[in-house]
């Protein structure tokens, strides 16, 4: 009995009137944990009851502590009839299980009802006494810290990065159980909410166990998702990066050179993670879904052919001077990583020196048919029962696990093809429509330093010091120049002039803080809509998988064009979302474009007409050309892209370039037309040629030009930080905006594209207008999600944070960074750039999971068309697409270095401070503590001094009086506001004053206006933290919480 959970119900306020006669309520509270329930006394006739209950004590296993939420139900006592429920509060007690997180949960929490929303608040106190348990075979993983943040949390230091952890649990969806037909919507919603709470808890515990096995103590970049598969069940899955973190204490200097030998390398060998037999430990969560159709689903495990990007020059494979130097360092790392099943990292930003080279984006998709539950009566007896599906797994070999395994294998092989041993910025997602499910995974192939690997050689640090590169190292290609996996035009690095870099770089990670960047970045989006025929089952899956490669290819083309149009050469934070509906597919790619100083300047875009005979047509073309040139020039000015002039003579043209011009292909355009014979390059070596050979192309170019620029004073990006802006003020405003658009039937692809594109553009315009009072400001971490809730509806949801900055200093900084860029042209150690000699052998090995024949045909056909490079040796890999990129590695985050040092100041604060802070708040009367929310991992102008635990909440809201609640907009507006309120309240109860790395991972909205009904599910997550303003830290070490509250209050005003 390793734990005692104690809860005390203090009071309620703002309760709803439950008795019409007296206009009052006779409220009491039920406190439930596991199967134990306690009740308070009835507090008669009050809307503000004071229960002041005793401490209710639950003696429980720590396993249960991790899985179960504390469930508090507020009821209205009724003498003659059944008691009416007012609402519920679920409290995740996980933060209390970790000594470094929160110690008590105390505060006003909203009482939530799935039909009525928030109905008053309840004041509770929750504590946990944990007994030490040294049982080696324990099932719990108390004490493992979880972070949503995709970088090393601000007040910790990474000692070791162990690697990828994943887990999934499956259950039936209560909404689809037979009992749902006879129970109320409220009961059904609550069953669902509770189930997902349980499943999340279980998932977290299991992931924690894996982390402990690996010798870690934390999960960073924890990403948990739900798949609502309808009748076939409900999947909760999570991925993350296991790490060993150490809290930065005041006494230790905040350097990153911590001895890495604290953990014996022997552990590594024993770790089951290293052994290939991981299947054993993952068998616990096989799918409950019971299906005879394993054949069927196997038939449709269609991996989507991946595109090789043809946009970047067809020549450049000639450089021979990269000799076969041996990189000891790299091999060591590689061998370390190769022992791992998946060398994946969900991190998007890295400790200094971790990321060495970046190869490019790797992604894989696969279309699956969801199995049906053949025995619906099952739900009857098994409702809520978890963990016990093993009995059904025997005859169900095809599980969700296997699906993901397939995809991950594919990703792994793509990374290898790029000469990389690891994948960073890794994420997984699904899109489900009826019985078809698209699984997607993407990440950035990279080469990492062994520095944070468990078995890294002890002398790595020295080695590392030698190879530090000044902000361009990550851009240097990791792959073999002689055997480039895709056509790329290589040049010598424009910073160090020693190593090869590609002409364009795409990545899914954040821009490394120390990257040399010219000018500012901006959000770049590619949007695409494709109609498809309605179909069922296998036919549908085939149609979708046939469409996917085209969709991806066009998205990529759009991205590339828009990137060129802005005069930039690299994309960060690339996220491509494909959403599937009954009659269409939606693709949305978002990324932040920047100009990396190390990469060559992008050429312009050239338009080539197909039939040069007609004079008016020529005229038209030249007009468009002029427009494009003007736009590029304007953009360069807008984003302050004026790279330092490069003196070509220093090295000379580094690479023999048989064809000095790149061509841009559209998937439909007949690239066989040999327009390429025309020399349109204007003497500029890498101009893009855009062929106008059909009306589509003309439309596309128009679309290209209609992307409206951000209004003056605004910048936007979808990454954590915006290059060129550092001096943030403390004014931040997080927001969520949702739009649903109804389409007319019978739209063409072009029409759909236009509508979809306008929808996104208009949404952005609205955001700029709303936030105009914050100018100058940057919308950071703009995260778009698209969905097709039903036929003819498109839903776009955006969550982002607007941050104001100081304009004056901006200019100054711009100058400084420009200077810095120049200074940084330092050479790198020869050792760093290595070519993996084994690459060939490995990559040409047949991929056992390669896609079915038909599809690989599509893939190879496509790539053959797309490029003149010989692809035959890569045909096997066609089922993944690869983008290339280059990133500098070692010195990753200027910000984090800075944080570290100021953390020294933060730490010496007296221990008792947080406590006094809390008491001040609880007793300070009426006013509500301000809680900041941000999707970023930091708060400008403030130091995070404590992480209080992960926030992971799932809510359902339903209404049968849609009109009365203000229609769909009114309903959703209220619901989102309620979700924010509940997140803030729980953070405040943990003793925090902010949520960082906040994200809304799910927003499923369904309506039936005819029946006056609507339902919405929202899943949010983030890290609860306590921060103090930097100014306070500096001013005095004797702070009072009231001061903190005061400043943050003031800062919140916008």
């Amino acid at each position, binding site marked *: 009995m390793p734990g005692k959970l104690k809860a005390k119900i203090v009071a309620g306020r703002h309760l709803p009137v439950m008795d019409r006669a007296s206009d009052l309520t006779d409220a009491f509270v039920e406190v439930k944990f596991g199967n134990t329930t306690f009740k308070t006394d009835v507090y008669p006739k009050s809307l503000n009851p004071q229960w002041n209950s005793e401490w209710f004590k639950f003696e429980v296993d720590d396993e249960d502590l991790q899985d179960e939420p504390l469930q508090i139900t507020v009821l209205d006592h009724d003498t003659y009839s059944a008691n009416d429920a007012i609402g519920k509060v679920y409290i995740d007690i996980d933060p209390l299980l970790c000594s470094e997180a929160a110690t008590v949960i105390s505060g006003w929490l909203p009482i939530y009802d799935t039909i009525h929303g928030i109905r008053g608040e309840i004041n509770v106190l929750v504590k946990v006494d944990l007994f030490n348990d040294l049982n080696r075979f324990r099932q719990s993983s108390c004490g493992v810290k979880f972070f949503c943040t995709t970088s090393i949390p601000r007040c910790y230091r990474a000692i070791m990065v162990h690697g990828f952890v994943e887990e999934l649990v499956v259950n039936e969806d209560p909404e689809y159980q037979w009992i749902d037909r006879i129970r109320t919507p409220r009961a059904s919603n609550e069953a669902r909410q509770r189930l997902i709470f349980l499943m999340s808890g279980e998932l977290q515990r299991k992931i924690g166990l894996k982390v402990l096995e690996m010798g870690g103590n934390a999960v960073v970049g924890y990403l948990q998702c739900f798949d609502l598969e309808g009748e076939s069940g409900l999947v909760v899955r999570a991925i993350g990066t296991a790490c060993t973190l150490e809290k930065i204490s005041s006494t230790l200097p905040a350097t990153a050179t911590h001895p890495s030998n604290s953990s014996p390398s022997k552990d590594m060998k024993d770790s089951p993670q290293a052994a290939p037999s991981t299947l054993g430990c993952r068998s616990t969560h096989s799918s409950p879904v019971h299906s005879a159709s394993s054949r069927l689903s196997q038939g449709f495990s269609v991996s989507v052919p991946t595109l090789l990007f043809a946009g970047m020059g067809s020549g450049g494979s000639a450089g021979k001077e990269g000799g076969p130097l041996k990189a000891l360092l790299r091999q060591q790392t590689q061998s370390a990583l190769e022992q791992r099943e998946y060398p994946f990292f969900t991190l998007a930003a890295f400790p200094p020196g971790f990321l060495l080279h970046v190869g490019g984006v790797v992604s894989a998709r696969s279309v699956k048919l969801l199995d049906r539950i053949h025995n619906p009566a099952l739900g009857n007896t098994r409702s809520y029962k978890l963990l016990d599906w093993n009995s059904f797994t025997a005859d169900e070999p095809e599980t969700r696990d296997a699906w993901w395994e397939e995809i991950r294998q594919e990703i792994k092989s793509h990374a290898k093809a790029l000469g990389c041993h690891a994948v960073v910025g890794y994420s997984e997602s699904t899109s489900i429509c009826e019985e078809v499910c698209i699984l997607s995974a993407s990440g950035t192939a990279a080469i990492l330093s062994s520095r944070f690997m468990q078995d890294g050689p002890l002398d790595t640090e020295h080695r590392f010091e030698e190879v530090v590169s000044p902000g361009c190292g990550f851009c240097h290609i990791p792959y073999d120049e002689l055997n480039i996996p895709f056509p790329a035009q290589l040049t010598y690095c424009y910073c160090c002039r020693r190593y090869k870099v590609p002409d364009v770089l795409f990545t899914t990670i954040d821009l490394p803080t120390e990257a040399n960047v010219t000018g500012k970045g901006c959000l770049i989006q590619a949007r695409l809509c494709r109609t498809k025929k309605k179909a069922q089952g296998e036919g549908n899956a085939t149609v979708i998988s046939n469409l996917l490669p085209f969709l991806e290819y066009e998205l990529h083309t759009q991205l590339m064009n828009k990137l060129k149009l802005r005069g930039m050469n690299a994309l960060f934070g690339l996220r491509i979302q494909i959403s599937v509906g009954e009659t269409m597919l939606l693709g949305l790619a978002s990324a932040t474009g920047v100009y990396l100083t190390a990469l060559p300047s992008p050429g312009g875009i050239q338009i080539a007409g197909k039939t040069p005979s007609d004079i008016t047509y020529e005229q038209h073309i030249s007009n468009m050309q002029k427009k494009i040139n003007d736009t590029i020039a304007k953009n360069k000015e807008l984003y302050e892209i004026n790279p330092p002039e490069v003196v070509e003579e220093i090295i000379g043209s580094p690479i023999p370039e048989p064809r000095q011009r790149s061509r841009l292909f559209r998937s439909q355009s007949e690239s066989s037309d040999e327009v390429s014979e025309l020399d349109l390059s204007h003497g500029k070596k890498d101009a893009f040629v855009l062929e106008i050979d059909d009306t589509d192309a003309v439309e596309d170019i128009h679309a290209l030009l209609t992307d409206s620029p951000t209004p003056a004073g605004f910048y936007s990006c979808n990454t954590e930080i915006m290059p060129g802006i550092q001096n943030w003020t403390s004014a931040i405003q997080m927001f969520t*905006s949702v739009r649903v658009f109804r389409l007319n039937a019978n739209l063409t692809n072009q029409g759909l594209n236009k509508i979809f594109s306008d929808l996104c553009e208009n949404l952005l315009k609205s955001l700029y207008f709303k936030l105009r009072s914050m100018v100058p400001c940057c919308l950071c971490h703009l995260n778009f999600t698209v969905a097709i809730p039903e036929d003819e509806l498109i839903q776009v949801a955006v969550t982002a944070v607007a941050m104001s900055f100081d304009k004056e200093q901006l200019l100054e900084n711009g100058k400084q960074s420009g200077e810095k860029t120049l200074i940084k042209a330092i050479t790198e150690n020869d050792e760093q750039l290595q070519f993996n000699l084994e690459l060939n052998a490995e990559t040409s090995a047949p991929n056992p999971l390669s896609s079915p024949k038909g599809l690989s045909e599509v893939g190879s056909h496509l790539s053959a068309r797309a490029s003149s490079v010989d692809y035959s040796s890569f045909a096997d890999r066609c089922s993944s697409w690869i983008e290339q990129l280059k990133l500098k590695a070692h010195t990753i985050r200027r910000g984090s270095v800075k944080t570290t040092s100021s953390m020294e100041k933060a730490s010496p604060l007296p221990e008792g401070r947080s406590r006094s802070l809390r008491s001040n708040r609880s007793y300070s009367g009426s006013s509500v503590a301000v809680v900041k929310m941000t999707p970023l991992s930091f708060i400008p102008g403030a130091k995070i001094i404590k992480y209080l635990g992960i926030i992971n909440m799932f809510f359902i809201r339903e209404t049968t009086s849609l009109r009365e609640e203000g229609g769909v907009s009114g309903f959703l507006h209220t619901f989102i506001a309620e979700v924010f309120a509940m997140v803030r309240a729980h953070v405040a109860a943990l003793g925090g004053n902010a949520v960082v790395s906040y994200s809304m991972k799910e927003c499923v909205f369904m309506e039936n206006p005819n029946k006056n009904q609507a339902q919405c599910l929202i899943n949010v997550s983030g890290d609860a933290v306590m921060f103090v303003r930097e100014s306070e830290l500096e001013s005095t070490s004797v702070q009072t919480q009231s001061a903190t509250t005061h400043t943050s209050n003031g800062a919140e005003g916008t």
Partner: protein
Amino acid sequence: MSVELDVFVGNTTIMDKEVYQLWLNGYTVNDAVKVRIEGGVMEECEASAEVLLSDTMDQYRTFQMCERLLHHPAKLANQLLFQIPPDRQAMLIERYYAFDDSFVREVLGKKLSKGTKKDLDDVSTKTGITLKSCRRQFDNFKRVFKVVEELKGPLVENIRQHFLLPDQLARDYAAIVFFANNRFETGKKKLHYLTFQDFAFCAGQLINNWTLGAVDNIMEDMDVDLDKEFLQELKDLKILITDKDLLDQHKSLVCTALRGKTNVFNEMEANFKNLSRGLVNIAAKLINAKDVRDFFIDLVEKFIEPFSLCLLYMGVIKSCILRMYHD
């Protein structure tokens, strides 16, 4: 093709003061958009009419959601649904409870009943204030009235505490409540020239001097009702006009007090008896509720009018004589 759903929710609730005022003024969304376009916000921010419409709808929805909180301003501070900085909260409350002088003149002293509310469309037509805004203002009066009606202690203070209003606004509400409670007639044509602030000043005087709260500081009763005992005693003032000696004494005292302090002193002195009678008659009748209601009209009819008639007469005569008097 249409936008079916469009919401924006900020962690800190974003509220535009200008749009808030338009909402308070009862503009429809479309009218508000027109006003905003005319105001030039579009050029300023490179926005389109579409964007403006979306923003206006969103703000209106936010205000509607906040409205029930504004009915109990104290709740606004400790509710959790909207994170609103304190200065914004104060602004929201103050503007929500602000009213138009022209509107309040129409309902001042009327019973705050459903009947009066039904007549608001007439008031709306007459004043040019939208019906929606009229209703909000009327409901505010009624809400404040209901809350403080039964409360003990000083009226202004009660209002300030319960509705978190700034001092001046709280005093105005005190006047409105006081007038409504005592049903003073203010709508007669003869009273039209008086502004709300005139009445508010008078109300302040009455509250401070003629109510129970004013008499003893025990705060046992409220400021809303006139002190009945006091009104009863006013009857005794009749002696000031019936008794010749007292009348003279009264006159000499008043004249001593006012000499040199008013430029109509002579006229006042000359008509003292009539004036005094008018005042005493009003005072003596105040014990009847009906006469309390007519307090202001009586003051005008029985005192100010005769006196100003006299002044007018005197004034004209004086100027005529001065003109005719050729030296």
